[in-house]
Every structure is written in C-alpha cells, then in structure tokens.
C-alpha cells in the first residue's frame, strides 16, 4: 500500500483514530509522518493518557478489593463518570468528579505532583474564610520568626492582627 499523503513511498505507519465511535484509518510513510510531525492527529495525547492510565491500573486500593466490598462502582453523581472510566481515559468529566472520586485520587496526585494540597492562588470571590485562613497561616509564621529573632514589638503587632482576624473569622 502506498502512502496516503505523498502517494509515492510505501506506507509504513498505520494509525487508527476513534472519535465518538467513528473510526478513521491512516496509512502513511515515515517521511510524511515526520513532515506532519506533532500536528498529526493522535500522536500528541498518546503518551500522557497512556502514562496516566498506567499509573491508575496499579492502584494498590484496587487490589485489596475495597471497591467490590460496597458492591457499587465508585461514580460521579453529577456527570456519571465511573472510577474505571476515569482510569482508562485519565480525564475527569466535570468538577464534581473531584468530590465523588475523592480519596481515591490522593495516591494519584501524590505520584504526579508529590503533593495533594493546593497552596497557590485563591479566587477573590471564593475568598471569605479561605482567604482569612491563608492570611492567618502567614501571620503565624511571621510571628514565630519575629519571636525567634527577638523582635518583640513586631511579634506583638502580629499577635494583635491574628486576634483581629480570628474574631472576624468567628463572626463570618
């Protein structure tokens, strides 16, 4: 079979793409594949998906049979995505998946990021308590470092600010 792109060289790469159940086959030569490079459909998402589902297949929690004990597949109640669908695609269906698939995700996050807790930007209007809590954490750290360096006036200032914030938190 000759390459579908140039029609000259023999096709050495045979690819099958399935989108929404619709199957498309490509037969191209290596040179044209290089020409098309990364833009060629199917190459670019291949590695990350495979890697992720590889990680998920070896989920230790699956081995000790916790899922079968409840006899109900772990599933997102909003979009219907099951844990096993997630482990195949490596993609969530909606933001509620994070809640419903819950604790099962921690080992995965730890493997990808080495961490399970966000510590960056917080949206302004989500703000409220979360913002105050983050500020409190920072003030407490500052307080400790002022105490350690014997800057007691500054430490007292931090202490007052912490109290004010804690009151605000209790009221909201």
């Amino acid at each position: 079979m000759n390459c579908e792109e140039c029609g000259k060289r023999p096709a050495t790469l045979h690819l099958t793409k399935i989108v929404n159940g619709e199957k498309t086959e490509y037969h191209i030569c290596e040179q044209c594949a290089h020409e098309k490079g990364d833009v060629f459909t199917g190459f670019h998402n291949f590695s990350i998906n495979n890697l992720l589902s590889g990680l998920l297949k070896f989920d230790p929690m699956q081995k000790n049979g916790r899922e079968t004990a409840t006899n109900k597949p772990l599933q997102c109640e909003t979009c219907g995505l099951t844990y096993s669908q997630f482990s195949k695609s490596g993609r969530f269906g909606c933001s509620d998946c994070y809640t419903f698939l819950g604790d099962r995700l921690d080992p995965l996050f730890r493997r990808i990021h080495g961490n399970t807790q966000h510590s960056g930007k917080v949206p302004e209007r989500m703000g409220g308590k979360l913002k105050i809590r983050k500020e409190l954490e920072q003030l407490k750290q500052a307080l400790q470092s002022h105490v350690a360096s014997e800057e007691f006036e500054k430490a007292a200032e931090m202490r007052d600010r912490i109290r004010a914030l804690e009151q605000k938190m209790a009221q909201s």
Partner: protein
Amino acid sequence: MSQKQFMQNPWSNWMKGEGPDSDIVISTRLRIARNLRQHPFPLLATDSQGEEVVRKVTEVSDSEAMRKRHQLQVIHMDQINPLEKRVLVEKHLISPHLAEESRKGAVLLREDESVSIMVNEEDHIRIQVLLPGFRLNEAWEIGTKIDDIFEKNLNYAFDETRGYLTSCPTNVGTGIRASVMLHLPALVMTQQISRILQAINQVGLVVRGIYGEGSEALGNLFQLSNQVTLGMSESDILSNLYGVARQIIEQERVARTYLLEHTRVSLEDRIFRSYGILMYARTVESKEAAQRLSDVRLGIDLGIIPDVSPLVLNELLVTTQPGFLQHHAGQKLTPDQRDERRARLIRERLRVVESQE
C-alpha cells in the same frame, strides 16, 4: 486585525526577538487552565453545553474591564478550514488538540498575538501569554490579571484542597504551565544535553519539543516547563523554572565560548555550509531546514554571520512549516512541492536580507 490577517501575517509578537537573553531564549509562554462550575468539562459536554461556555467566555471578553486592557477577537474553530487551523498551531496560538479534536472550540486572540485564550480545549478556558525572550514574571502578571477579570464574572470550579479543578489530573492546583523555548545548539554539539535533560526531570520540570508534548526537539529548540502544579505556589513554580533556565542559559553560553575557542574552524565551516545550503538549495525538507536554520542562528549570535537578523530566522521557523507553506500557496501541496517552496522561500528571504545590508 481581521481573521484573514491572523492567518497570513507570519509575525507574532513572540517572534520579535527583543526580550532579555533573546540569543538563547526564543520565547516565554504561560498557560492558565480554568473551568466553570456546573458545566461538564469539554470532553463530555454536548454541543449546546459547549456553545453555552463559549457564549459566557466571550461575554466577559467583551466586558469593559477586558476591553480596557485587551482587544480580543473571537475565532470559532468550526468557521475556519483545516489549513487555517494549522497555521494558528504553527504560530503557537492554539494547540493541535483545539484545532483537531475540540467540539465548539474557539480562540480569543489579541491583535499582537501575545495573548490567546482557548475555549473548550481540554479545559473550558486556557489563557495563554506568549512573549519574546525570557520574561516569566511579566507573562504571569499579564495572565493573572486576565484570570482575575474572568473570575469576577464567572463561577470558577475551585476547591479549597485541590485548587483549580481541571480536566486532567496533571494540571490541577494552580493550573499553570510556564515554559521557555530555548535554542541550545552548543549543548547539543558538545553532547552535554542528555546529561542536562536527565537532571531536569529530577527537579519537577520537563523538556519537550517545540510543538509540545510528544514532539521532537527540531532545530535544537527545547521547551522547558514545569511539571508539578499541585502543592507549589505560582511564585514557587516560576522561580524554580527561572532558576533552572538561568543555569541552562549560562551552560549554553559556556559551551558556545568553548566551541569558539577550541574548534573555531570546524564551527565556522559547519555554520557557513548550512548558510550556503540555505542560500542555494532547490529543495529542503523541514527537518533539514530546522537544523540549518539553527546553525545560521548560532552563526549570527556568535557574530560569525554578521549581516542577517535573527528575526528572519524566527519568521522562517514558522513560515516554512507545512501548514503555512500550503496556506500561502492557497492549495494543498505534496511533500516534494513543499520542499521546493520551502527552499525558495528561505533563499528569497536570506537574499532580501543580504541585499538590504
């Protein structure tokens, strides 16, 4: 700028080569992934749900707060042809995924192309800032302000513990992916690159080819980016990337000096051979073009080739891509025809520069 101009004009802001360390850092890119609460992610969304997201996002882009800073033009993916999509990919304004696999995908583009906001790519919103040279903090400043405007008007999917919720678990948390595109010919020539790439993987960073994940490092161009998005703050991520990139830039400079001092003749020979081929060849494959252009750029950066502006090379890097060549020709071309057109384009461009000097 009209939709047509975005396709035909090869120049994007990022190619202007004016930023700091632009002899090695071609461009800085920052991407922020965001999603809307109560909307299924693009993977599962129906066409009408996808349209709803596009409508909400474009409403914000039309708001006064946004228009004060950025004039954004909307391009819907189902209204442009495959070749036009490919041109946008080759200019790094959209991803291959948005071009080929998204449904109801759209992009909001700023006129100078330094900001592009993809809608319904893998996530509902992906804000991308693309600047010439090494400018991580500036890119973040621009991106985070746009993010703030969206956030004031839309309900983001955010969770106290997990941060910004994304389609793929690799982006959750800050949702930011920052990257710098580095030209590292001397580290490749001195065979130090593999040692460096190995070390990079150990510090939470990753190296890819210039068209993203899975692509080859064509023409000695490497894209260095952060891998971790959860548990590190944005400033930690950026300073980590900054520090490592800084080190690589210095190592590349050392390697360039070494090559100049120890192997000047063979280095000059290689550079001028590539220059000669590009000036006279009648057919050039894209891979060879990328390699020869890399040699010529190195020659310019080292003062060996005095009369060519590195900007021409940035331009050629984009205009010699298959999509651009075909769009310019106004027709589909076979690989042989593309190789011929590529060679002609490079010849003409380098001649113009020479005769101008």
